[in-house]
């Protein structure tokens, strides 16, 4: 096939000018695009307003489709469960019996904890929950890992708020629009979470790798203290995430870096909980906080 002739304007002056003008527009537009990217380097959430329209339009459709296909993500699990169902049943029953004692112990510890906290007059941790919503879509074609949440600014969601599922941490809010919000997932390469090992408090930092796993670097000097099977929870340092949210389990240790898999899979969880930023939840005057002292402090500050 020979090249189609339409691109050659020939000797027609008007067509020549029109073609030239189209290239001028294209090059200028490309330069503007590059400029927008450069602006985004310094202010990644700067053009969030442009996304609002798109996310608000696509939200109803995503919600509808989500309610139709809910459960598709776990089809493979259901099928795999039929494989060796009998022996699995026996081992699971044994495990349940073993776990029952531990649950009773844990309940006792929780009760004791509650009592001690009341003694110390700490803020009730339950007040940090803001709302429960669903993840409805994600940036499936991009190298960044964002998920779209079916709740936004009008529901009280603010950028920076932690998002978690019952199984563990999901991520934090990145951009909000009136009825939806973008969640920066735990596995995004720019999401850094301060964590600690659950059993002995070794501090570390978890960074996403963008492929569904996280990279864990210990903050202690010396050799890598992590072994496969170690459970990592948030440490509460930095004031964003409240402590003791399960984050990941270590699967491989290599040199100074350990690799972990998040405990909560955003594709499987049904609903996620948006929490208040830990620092705000702690410093917020809760119902437990004594009123008298605050009033005094207010009087002291006010002229």
């Amino acid at each position, binding site marked *: 096939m020979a090249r189609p002739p339409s691109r050659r304007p020939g000797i027609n002056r008007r067509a020549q000018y029109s073609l030239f003008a189209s290239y001028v527009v294209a090059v200028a537009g490309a330069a503007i*695009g590059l400029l927008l990217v450069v602006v985004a380097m310094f202010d990644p959430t700067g053009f969030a307003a442009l996304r609002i329209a798109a996310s608000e339009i696509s939200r109803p459709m995503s919600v509808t489709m989500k309610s139709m296909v809910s459960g598709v993500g776990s089809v493979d699990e259901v099928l795999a469960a039929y494989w060796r169902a009998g022996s699995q049943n026996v081992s699971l029953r044994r495990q349940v019996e073993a776990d029952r004692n531990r649950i009773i112990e844990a309940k006792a510890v929780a009760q004791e904890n509650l009592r001690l906290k009341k003694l110390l007059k700490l803020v009730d941790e339950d007040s940090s929950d803001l709302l429960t919503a669903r993840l409805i879509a994600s940036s499936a074609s991009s190298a960044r890992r964002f998920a779209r949440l079916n709740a936004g600014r009008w529901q009280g969601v603010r950028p920076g708020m932690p998002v978690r599922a019952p199984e563990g941490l999901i991520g934090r809010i990145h951009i909000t629009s009136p009825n939806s919000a973008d969640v920066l997932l735990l596995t995004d390469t720019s999401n850094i979470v301060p964590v600690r090992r659950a059993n002995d408090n070794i501090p570390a930092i978890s960074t996403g790798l963008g492929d569904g796993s996280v990279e864990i670097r210990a903050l202690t000097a010396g050799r890598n203290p992590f072994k496969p099977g170690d459970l990592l929870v948030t440490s509460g340092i930095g004031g964003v995430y409240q402590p003791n949210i399960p984050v990941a389990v270590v699967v491989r240790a290599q040199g100074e870096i350990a690799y972990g898999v998040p405990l909560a899979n955003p594709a499987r969880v049904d609903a996620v909980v948006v929490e208040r930023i830990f620092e705000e939840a702690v410093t917020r005057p809760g119902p437990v906080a004594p009123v008298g002292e605050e009033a005094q402090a207010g009087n002291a500050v006010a002229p």
Partner: protein
Amino acid sequence: MIDPHLHHVPRLGRYPSRFRLAGTPVATVMLGSFLTALPVIAQTAILPPFGLLILLSWRLLRPELWRAWIGLPLGLFDDMMSGQPIGSAMFLWTVALIGIDWIEHRMVWRSYRQDWLIAALAIIFCISGGLFFARITGGGSVRFILVTPQIVWTILLFPFVVRQCARIDRWRVMA
């Protein structure tokens, strides 16, 4: 039995509306960009950039349809739908279209295979460029190996998408 293809034969004196002629390609590209609204929570970049694929298909199928600046509005829409920084697809798509124009000026004889090669180059350029932009706008150290599977199956998907575009094109030009 009537041949089903005969449904598309234009009737005498009738032409497709301007809206259908100009709007169909734009609408299909936007629909491709819109696929990220599917309720899939991806753990890695798995979905091929369908907006880009359909844009390249139309461009290579119908060179006279668009000027290079069409990459700007369509790229902006794609940026709003994907998680990429605004301006990324605007720049990359427009540069890819200008590049295709440039190649067309030099290549006299062209067939379907050359089209596929051109599309493959454009796909590699756009996806790795998008990765670079994601990296410099606060994405941290995203590795290139993360998007190589996406690049491979986007290139492999091109013939299929081009066929679908040709099918839509047949409907588009027939009244």
